[in-house]
């Protein structure tokens, strides 16, 4: 079995910040807007290097989204930055009308997604954002798994014409994908081949899926592990190919089971190739205060939960 090495824990939001800094140097059309969370979004370097292209909008997210939409008229590529909760739910109508319906080339970049904002609690966490964004016609939805992938994705979306929601987290997590990866929007990454079960994971759960696969391998179960960094458009082909081989699937995400990746996969399988599926996700609940590890454990979003789900789904084959 292929082994993945954590080259040193890093936060995905730093991948965003470093990607943005690199973009600032190579693409003069890239502009950045932030709603009073420059440090949290790791946008300081961009601000320092390109003060004329950095826009501090204050605690006014609706105005930020509208301004970003307007800045595309004349050719700029705006990257907005705030927490995932304030990037989506708070400004849903602004994104819907001024960005998505108007087809504007805005990159909505959201940190602190899911539960991992930890101690701040439910008001600052969001477990519904993937659903909100994927339901918007024309919106691309990306949820990256580690520092390297977030950096690569940040750079890649600048070259893609159209609205994008880029979602990443707060804590330091394993950094295991290649530094020089070719990030292709909408293209699943096959991390591990296997014949018994397909584990489809996104974001922070990809590393957990790899850990689960190792545990399962020791018990003689060969799991295929797929990293879905782009939830919309979904790589239907890669998922169907794998599930046709393994006959069952576990999806894993730091999001509500309603509206998330699991539901997208269920929709695909139910219409193309029905197969047993288990969903690792939160069960229609808000979050709460706690350390990220405690929360992931309490809400069943870790390697051991994935192993249990695999055992359940294989029994249903």
């Amino acid at each position, binding site marked *: 079995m292929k082994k993945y090495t954590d080259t040193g824990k890093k936060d995905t939001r730093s991948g965003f910040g470093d990607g943005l800094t690199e973009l600032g140097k190579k693409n003069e059309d890239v502009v950045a807007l932030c709603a009073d969370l420059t440090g949290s979004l790791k946008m300081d370097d961009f601000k320092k290097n390109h003060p004329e292209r950095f826009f501090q909008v204050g605690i006014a997210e609706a105005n930020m989204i509208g301004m970003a939409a307007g800045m595309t*008229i004349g050719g700029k590529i705006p990257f907005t930055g705030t927490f995932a909760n304030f990037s989506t739910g708070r400004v849903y109508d602004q994104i819907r009308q001024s960005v998505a319906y108007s087809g504007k080339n805005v990159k909505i970049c959201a940190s602190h997604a899911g539960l991992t904002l930890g101690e701040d609690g439910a008001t600052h966490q969001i477990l519904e954002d993937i659903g909100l964004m994927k339901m918007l016609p024309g919106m691309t939805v990306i949820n990256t798994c580690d520092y390297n992938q977030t950096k690569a994705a940040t750079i890649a979306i600048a070259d893609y014409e159209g609205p994008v929601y880029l979602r990443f987290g707060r804590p330091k997590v394993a950094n295991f994908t290649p530094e020089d990866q070719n990030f292709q929007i909408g293209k699943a990454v096959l991390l591990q081949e296997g014949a018994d079960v397909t584990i489809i994971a996104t974001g922070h759960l990809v590393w957990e899926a790899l850990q689960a696969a190792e545990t399962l391998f020791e018990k003689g179960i060969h799991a295929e592990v797929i990293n879905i960094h782009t939830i919309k458009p979904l790589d239907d082909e890669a998922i169907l190919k794998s599930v046709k081989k393994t006959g069952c699937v576990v999806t894993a995400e730091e999001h509500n089971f309603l509206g998330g990746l699991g539901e997208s996969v269920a929709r695909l399988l139910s219409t193309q190739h029905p197969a047993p599926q288990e969903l690792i996700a939160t069960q229609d609940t808000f979050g709460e205060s706690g350390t990220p590890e405690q929360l992931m454990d309490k809400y069943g979003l870790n390697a051991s939960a994935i192993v249990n789900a695999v055992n359940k789904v294989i029994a249903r084959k």
Partner: protein
Amino acid sequence: MADYKALEDLVIQVRRDILRQVHKVNSGHPGGSLGCTEFFVALYNEILERKDSFAMDGKDEDIFFLSNGHISPVFYSVLARSGYFPVSELNTFRLLNSRLQGHPTTHEGLPGIRIASGSLGQGISVSIGAALTKKLNKDNHLVYTLCGDGELQEGQNWEAIMYAAGNGVDNLIVTVDLNGQQIDGSTDNVLPMGNIKAKFEAFGWDVMDIENGNDLKAVISGMKKAKEKTGSGKPICVLLHTVMGNGVDFMMHTHDWHGKAPDDQQLENALSQNPVTLGIISPTPSPSIRIYP
């Protein structure tokens, strides 16, 4: 020097277009559209430095955004009569498969429209973004937007108003259609906004009034004055005092016609108050549009 006779004729024609569009589909917003007719005619004929062909990026020309998208009938009429699309297409307003959606959208690719609007309160933000891009592009042209007075009840406006003044967005002219009416009644009854002029000034804007927003000459000279005020470090707010439903006696000075279409007899009456100037709009629909019986 403007040919005021020709422009006055155009004003009457635009009123006819508004009435006919709304009557044909028995829906839409004639009141605010009629109130802003002189403004739109002035803007597209005398104020905007614009190119005849439409480009979404609006580079090297002035840009206008309509924030209160429900007054689409006046916007569509003036865009068509400015050459952006065939006048005959006004016949498709609000019909299935039309580019003239009830509220303006970029989605259908109608030339002249650079942002969707209808959900209120977003236009000033978008305009600030476009104005900042003009500055980055070293493009000295201006950005204009129109919003309704009732629309200022949306909180996002005040985020934007605060930003524009705080950051010296001085290539922006925001016009507020001050007609004192909204769907449920007068703005004073629905949600009093107090002194709008004082509010803009307190936020740091350069504010001016056009006392008679339904007098074409007053609108043209007022907007020219607003233009002269740009570039001084402050964003410009023009308070355009209009009468909702202007030009049709039974629609004036009331919110009753905010979002209601005239019946056959009312249409005839309204059109008779605005006799033909440029000829009635063609009854032939655009070939790309299928109209079902």
